[in-house]
Every structure is written in C-alpha cells, then in structure tokens.
C-alpha cells in the first residue's frame, strides 16, 4: 500500500505564481521567503550530516526528517516568538526556524557537556526553553495533553499566545491523542495541532493505522476544524497554519492541520525501511521533494539565482561544519550530572549514592 497522493485544494507552489490574492494576512516578504528556504536547506544538510555521523559512530542515534522540512518549517514560521511549540523527535526544522542554535542541536546529538539536556536524553530528544520548544519524551503522543494544558493556561492568564503541537500519523491511534483533542475542543484551547502524516509509523502504513479516510476528519469528532494541506508545499503549510493560529489567538479555538508528506529516510538509524516499503514509492515521493519544489518556485519568481543558491548552501555547510568541529571538542558531562535535577533539592539517598559513585568513578576514569 502506498501513501495516497495529497487531495487538497490548497495548492500554492505547483500553480504558477505566488497567489497574493488569497485572504491571508502576513504573507512572507521576499527576505522571509529566502529565510524559509535557507532554514529548509539547513534542516536537510543537518539531517544528512547527522545520519552520516551516526553511521561513522560519532553520535549514537538519530531520527531523520528528510522530506518533511516544508511541514515543519512552514508551520512554525507562522508563530510569534512568545508562542510555544511541542515538537516530536523528528522536528529539526521546527527547532531551526524557531532559532535554535546549530551548536545546541549538535551538542545534544553528542550528549556532551554543552548539551542543554546535560547528556541525559537519547539523541533527537530535544528541548530548548529559550525558544519555547518543549522537551521531547519518546512515548508517542504523551506530549499532546500537556500541550493542551499549556494552551489552557495561556487562556486562563488572558494572554493571546498560541501553542503549536506536532504529532505523527501513528500518534493518532494513542489514547493521549484523543484526550488531548477532546480537552482542546471542550475548552476551546488556543492550540493548533500539526499532524505530519508522513505515511508511515515505522513499518505500519497510515492506511492500516486507521479506518478513517483522512486523519483531519478526526478533529470533526472533537468539535473543531480539521484541514488537509500538501505538506510538501511550504507556503500552503504556512498559510493554513497562519490562519489557524490567528483563529486560536482570537479565542476561536483549536484547529488540526494534516500535512500530507513523506518520510524519505528510515524511521531512525535503527530502522531498515526496505523490509516494509517499496523503492518505487520512495522514488515517487523523491520526485516531489519539498525543497526542490520551493527552490524551483523561488527561481521561477526570480527570487533566487543559481549563484545565490550555491552561496547559501556553501555558507550553511560551513556553519554546520564549524558547529560540529567545535562540539566534538567538548567533553562528556560531569559525573554529578547523573544525580542533579531529579528533584529541586537533593534528598539523602541521592546524595549518598552520589558519594559512593564518585569513588567508583574516580577509579574507572
């Protein structure tokens, strides 16, 4: 079974020209379009590099996002700085467009002493408080009720902030998905759910994940709007999200946006997708690569020249390489980091265990 081709009204990039006549507020300026492109490209370069580093044993694990950059970057671009995101392990593009530094991402993958997670979490389990990018846990969909809670608190405090909560197609089967959607609907929480329907939940195709013809229709059951967009069309994703975010900000409640996209790479560095899906399917989606689509649009509109394109790529590669080189120098976290942050202050048992451990560690270092 293959992921069905998107059936959406909201095509932007495949039709000629940038549809300025749409009633969207805040269309990206030329500079912003180039910025979006840069971040998408950076996400791709980061992804490729990280996969390679894992293969070379320089990092332990990685969850690639190649193919999904448009869904990630296009949606998060619609936010204000003070809004929040609840990402998944795969959302590198969200982190980058929100302004996460390359070094902090690399440090996390290496689990070194500069890692904001202090080397405690497996790679791809990000969390950056400075950019309101909530901390990731592996159990699928466990973040969704929490995201709704943050949105409810924003409403409680009479703020006009919005939460963007990301999840996959597989996540829609979990109990937490349903709890989250129901609470969001009941309390009209200022939240927008971005469902990155990439066709697969490890080896299970979306058609066997649910008997519903679409995922977006699940929102209807909870009393709010669900829309489908071409998730490989960064501007379509942006527009749908901007509209939903505005709606949430106005106090008109949640929206679910189902981005139809595709995971071009393996589920994670531990996965071998040739066991469960065909090469043809992957090739078909490669031809609809979201970065290629956006690049040809920018070129057609004379917003990006070939020279500028290669200059951008070179710049980004240099930035990335130097971030990696710097982070590879950093030592691993100090031993005491195992014992910190369990509680706000240290109980006797942890103190005692730390004292014992210190002795053992000094012998083993």
């Amino acid at each position, binding site marked *: 079974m293959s992921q069905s081709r998107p059936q959406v009204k909201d095509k932007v990039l495949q039709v000629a020209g940038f549809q300025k006549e749409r009633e969207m507020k805040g269309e990206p300026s030329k500079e912003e379009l180039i910025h979006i492109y840069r971040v998408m490209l950076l996400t791709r370069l980061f992804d490729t590099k990280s996969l390679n580093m894992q293969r070379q044993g320089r990092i332990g694990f990685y969850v690639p996002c190649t193919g999904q950059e448009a869904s990630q970057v296009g949606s998060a671009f619609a936010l204000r700085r003070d809004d929040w995101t609840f990402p998944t392990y795969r959302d590198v593009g969200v982190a980058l467009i929100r302004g996460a530094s390359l070094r902090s991402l690399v440090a996390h993958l290496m689990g*070194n002493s500069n890692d904001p997670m202090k*080397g*405690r979490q497996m790679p791809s389990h990000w969390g950056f408080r400075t950019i309101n990018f909530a901390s990731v846990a592996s*159990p699928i969909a466990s973040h969704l009720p929490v995201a709704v809670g943050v949105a409810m608190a924003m409403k409680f405090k009479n703020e006009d902030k919005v939460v963007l909560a990301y999840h996959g197609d597989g996540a829609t089967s979990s109990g937490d998905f349903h709890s989250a959607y129901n609470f969001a609907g009941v309390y009209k929480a200022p939240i927008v759910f971005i469902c990155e329907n990439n066709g697969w*939940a490890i080896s299970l195709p979306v058609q*066997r*994940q649910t008997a519903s013809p679409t995922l977006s229709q699940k929102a209807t059951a909870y009393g709010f709007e669900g829309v489908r967009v071409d998730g490989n069309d960064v501007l379509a994703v942006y527009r749908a999200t901007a509209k939903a975010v505005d709606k949430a900000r106005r106090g008109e409640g949640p929206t679910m946006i189902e981005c139809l996209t595709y995971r071009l790479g393996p589920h994670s560095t531990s*996965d071998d997708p040739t*066991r469960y899906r065909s090469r043809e399917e992957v090739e078909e989606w490669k031809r609809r690569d979201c970065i290629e689509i956006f690049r040809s649009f920018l070129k057609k509109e004379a917003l990006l020249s070939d020279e500028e394109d290669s200059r951008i790529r070179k710049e980004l590669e240099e930035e990335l390489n130097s971030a990696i080189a710097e982070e590879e120098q950093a030592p691993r976290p100090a031993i005491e980091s195992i014992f910190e942050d*369990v509680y706000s202050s240290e109980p006797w048992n942890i103190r005692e265990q730390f004292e014992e451990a210190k002795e053992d560690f000094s012998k083993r270092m």
Partner: protein
Amino acid sequence: MPTINLVQAVNQALREEMRRDERIVILGEDVGKDGGVFRATEGLYEEFGENRVIDTPLSESGIIGTAIGMAIYGLNPVPEIQFLDFIYPAFDQIVTNLAKLRYRSGGQYSCHLVVRAPYGGGIKGGHYHSQSSEAYFCHTAGLKVVIPATPYDTKGLLLSSIRDKDPVIFLEPKKIYRSVKEEVPEGEFTVPIGKAKLAREGSDVSIIAYGAMLHVALEAAETARKNGVDVEVLDLRTLIPLDIDAVLATVKKTGRVIIVHEAPKTGGFGAEIAALISEKAIEYLKGPIIRVAGYDTPFPYTLEEFYMPSVPRIMKAIDKLMQY
C-alpha cells in the same frame, strides 16, 4: 545442538508453539512484516499470516486490552510491547483487568496471556529505551513476572509462560539479546516458572541477580575467585512467584548476601528480597544485605555505563561483606 542467542530463542519458542497451538496469536507494533524492531518475531508473519501475527495501530492500551478480550474468548495471545518503557499507556489494562479478572469475578473468568517486552539498559537508549520497571508489576497481585537471562531459559520459560493459566509479564533483557549464546535444543522442552537456578556454586558470598545482571554477577564472581573469595550466584529467573526456598538456601549457606539489579534501588525488587531474608533467615546473616542497583534517578544517556551496576561496584560490595 544449534547455538543460538536470546532473541533467536524467543523466536524459536514462538514459532514452535504456534505450530502446535493454533490459538496463539501475536499482536503488537511492527511485529508483522518488519519482524519486530528487535527481530523477535521475524518470519512469523510469513509463516502464520496476518490473522495470527497482527500489526496493530500505535496503542498499547489497545494491544493489551484487545489481547485480554481474546484471552477471555479462548485465544492464547502473546502481545509484544516494543519497549517496556512504552507499556505505561497499557498499565491501566494490566492492573485493572489483566491482573484482577480471575479474582474479581470470583474465579468465573480468567485471562491468561503473556506480555513480552524487552527491558533494561546498556544499549544507549536514554530514559525511554532503558528502564527496568519490573517492580511495578511485582507489586500487582495476580501477575506472574518472569525474567530469563540465558537463551535456554528464555525458550523454556517462554513455553511455560504460554502454557501457564495466569497472566505473565515476560521481560527480555535486550542488552544481551544477541551477546549471550548457548546450545539450545530444538523442539519441546520447558523450564518451570517459579524456580531459580544456581548459576554458580560458592561458599563465601551469595549474589542474587536476574536478567542481564546475571552475567555481570558471574563476571564479578570470577574476579573474586582470583582474590580467593568463593562466590555463589543465584539466577532468580522468576520474580513472582519467587523461589523463596532457593533464596533461603543460599543465604543459609553463605550468610553474606548481595542483590544486584539495574532498576533503581529505592522500592526495587531487591528491597522485597532483603525484607524476606530478614523475616525468614536473619539469624544466618553475618553482615548487612547489600543492594547493588541502578541509582534513584532516571536512566541517563551519555553516562549510562556509570549508572548500570558494574563488576567494580559488585567487587566493592564483596570486599565489604568479607570483612564480616
């Protein structure tokens, strides 16, 4: 006799028993076409088809809840939870229905099934691919908890678990899925639930361990031998029902006890063993019961080798006890 590893032992037990008993169904995430993320169910989908090897939607409560229903209606389900760390969405089903059905219905209903889940650290899995949460299940009346440490016991105990009349939580030490190999007979044999195994005889100190920690304990025992200390190692194999006779026998023999598990120390199963020993055999003890366990913190990533009980940590405990 072919030499196989632990994950192959799981696969062999499932395959052979599925051929013998057509009521057995496997259900879980990625268990079908993919053969399971650890390949424990490899080839079963091809042999038994999608009605008996069921790739489920991503919902652990759905997996365990429906497996309970199937069991009530006479099937013999062996659901897989991809990592023990992901069992919590099904915790309600396990504690509320699975563990209590026989008791709450006055024995009218029962639901026998085996929940298989890889558990434990040592694979660089961070917080959510490393936990050893066996104590939660041991604390719930009505569940049996089985943790094999060798390929032979894995096959024999899995077959016993599938044939048992009670729900079994069957935890597979994924750190040693591939690294521990031994000769295992093809065909039918069982290892009884509720029986520990003396993995090594000794007279000075007893180490009580299970799962991946058995092998660390054996290594420590070998190191201790070089220092002239004779260490006995008891592999529990089943936590519930605990082989109390075997525990008391080794305690009475050596009078010095170390319990090793990678789960956090506080409230871990070691505490239960220590309490039982002090209730039933305190007069035989020459020194304190020492637990070498995971720390009372979530499971770390970069520094996991320092978190897991290690040979040096066990050696320290042995040295301490030998002063008594």
